[in-house]
């Protein structure tokens, strides 16, 4: 067994331990508050969804590069579907939207799998950005054209380009950091951002007072500060998974959690604009894919590029 595999097993065991603890806490709360407490029931549905996600993610991690690419390609697919369901489109966009789903999305992940850094960094921001509006324009309907192409491009950037930077972390080669440990780096990013989110929510409920943008999101400055600090501490504890020093890991975790937290606000604004509560219903208890991963989506490219700047 390589050290990466044994580290992954350790990580999985520890996460399962934590989840078991959360499940037991939930069941105890259920006994204490009776069967129908909505807060406890929401919590338990979420715990169940987390279990499913952790198992799925671990299976993909164990399957290695291809497993992760397939998992994230499907995540992108689900997220792009949620996004494009809410954007403006006309019949004239049909072909370009079909290309987005069935050509652009798979190609982006293929390029990542092949490690063609130069191509996957510009494929969507340059080629898709220019080509898809051409396809739409050729079909001839100018009604709200700019809004249509802008929204489609935004959807692709967020749900495919940004999200694909999570598996792209596998492709980073840092001196003295074995290439096969890239999967641990992915687990690091997702864990610090998701725990940051969760603790932001928890502390926001407890001590939060000043809303960051009142009327759009329940997020508070206090909650966010606590979330970022906790993410940094967790990042420091998980530094062994990364090529960073302990301080470096804390810094990167804090950065990812901060960007992720603000990303969350951006998505809250979009949901408010489109007058929906959740992006969809795919994950029981948490709404859609985008609801669950909005912060990771924002954090991933920043994490990737800052790491590129400092550690390469």
């Amino acid at each position, binding site marked *: 067994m390589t050290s990466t595999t044994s580290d992954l097993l350790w990580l999985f065991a520890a996460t399962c331990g934590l989840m078991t603890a959360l499940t037991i806490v939930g069941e105890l709360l259920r006994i204490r508050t009776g069967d129908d407490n909505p807060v406890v029931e929401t919590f338990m549905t979420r715990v169940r969804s987390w279990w499913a996600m952790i198992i799925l993610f671990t299976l993909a991690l164990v399957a290695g590069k291809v497993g992760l690419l397939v998992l994230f390609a499907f995540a992108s*697919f*689900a997220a792009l*579907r*949620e996004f*494009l*369901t809410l954007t*403006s*489109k006309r*019949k004239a966009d*049909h*072909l370009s*939207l*079909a290309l987005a*789903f*069935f050509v652009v999305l798979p190609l982006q992940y293929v390029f990542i799998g092949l490690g063609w850094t130069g191509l996957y960094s510009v494929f969507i921001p340059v080629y898709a950005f220019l080509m898809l509006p051409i396809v739409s324009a050729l079909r001839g309907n100018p009604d*709200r054209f700019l*809004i249509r192409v802008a929204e489609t491009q935004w959807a692709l950037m967020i749900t495919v380009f940004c999200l694909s930077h999570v598996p792209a972390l596998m492709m980073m080669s840092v001196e003295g950091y074995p290439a096969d440990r890239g999967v641990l780096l992915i687990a690091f990013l997702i864990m610090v951002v998701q725990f940051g989110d969760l603790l932001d929510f928890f502390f926001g409920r407890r001590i939060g007072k000043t809303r960051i943008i009142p009327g759009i999101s329940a997020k508070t400055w206090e909650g966010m500060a606590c979330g970022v600090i906790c993410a940094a501490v967790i990042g420091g504890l998980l530094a062994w998974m990364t090529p960073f020093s302990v301080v470096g890991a804390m810094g990167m975790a804090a950065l990812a959690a901060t960007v992720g937290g603000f990303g969350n606000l951006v998505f809250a604004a979009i949901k408010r604009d489109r007058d929906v509560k959740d992006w*969809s*219903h*795919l994950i029981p208890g948490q709404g859609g894919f985008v609801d669950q991963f909005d912060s990771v989506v924002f954090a991933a490219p920043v994490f990737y590029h800052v790491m590129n700047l400092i550690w390469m």
Partner: protein
Amino acid sequence: MKSILSLPRRAAAKLVGVAISMLVHFLTAVRANWQGIEPVNRQRVYFANHVSNADMPMIWSCLPPNLRRNVRPVAAADYWLKNKLRAFVGPEVFNCVLVDRRPEAREDGHDPMQNILDALDDGSSLIIFPEGNRNMTDDPLLPFKAGLFNIGIARPDIDLVPTWIANVTEIMPKGEVIPLPLICTVTFGEAIHVNDGEDKTAFLKRASNALVALAPKEEKL
């Protein structure tokens, strides 16, 4: 009908049904929104808007399996008997009640309503498209045909459930070949019945309004 179908054929029909339902779920993540009624196994007539050929498989797929087993879409015989494949998918996979829209093709004196009423008397639920044809206009609904009213009069106890399918036009506009995998929602509203003394026009108007009321308010900029 079922008894004369050989076992492998029935197994194939079942399998194709599962495959269609999985494909619909994968492509459109179809979701049932039970707004006015519960998804329980009661005899009902689901009446829905009709814009594309994907409508019927969509409603069919989003029903829970126990309801799906007992539901029969009412469909046009001239469409579903056109070739062997359709004749397998329509009557055997979806278990359609076939109705001939062409008076000249009917046997003498055979009322197409009879097939529908027979299916109801067997205890089946139905899916019908009261507009009669696919709606290619910009209006939300075409005027309803009399069928729904006749069912409501003939079997007054059965719940008539308005069923709105959203987004199908965007998933598969007419003339396009590749379906977009957007999210589709099927909304089931509160059941209606024909009131005492209500005439055909008034009832069809009320039914049509009940259906349109389920459409999501989308101000498309």
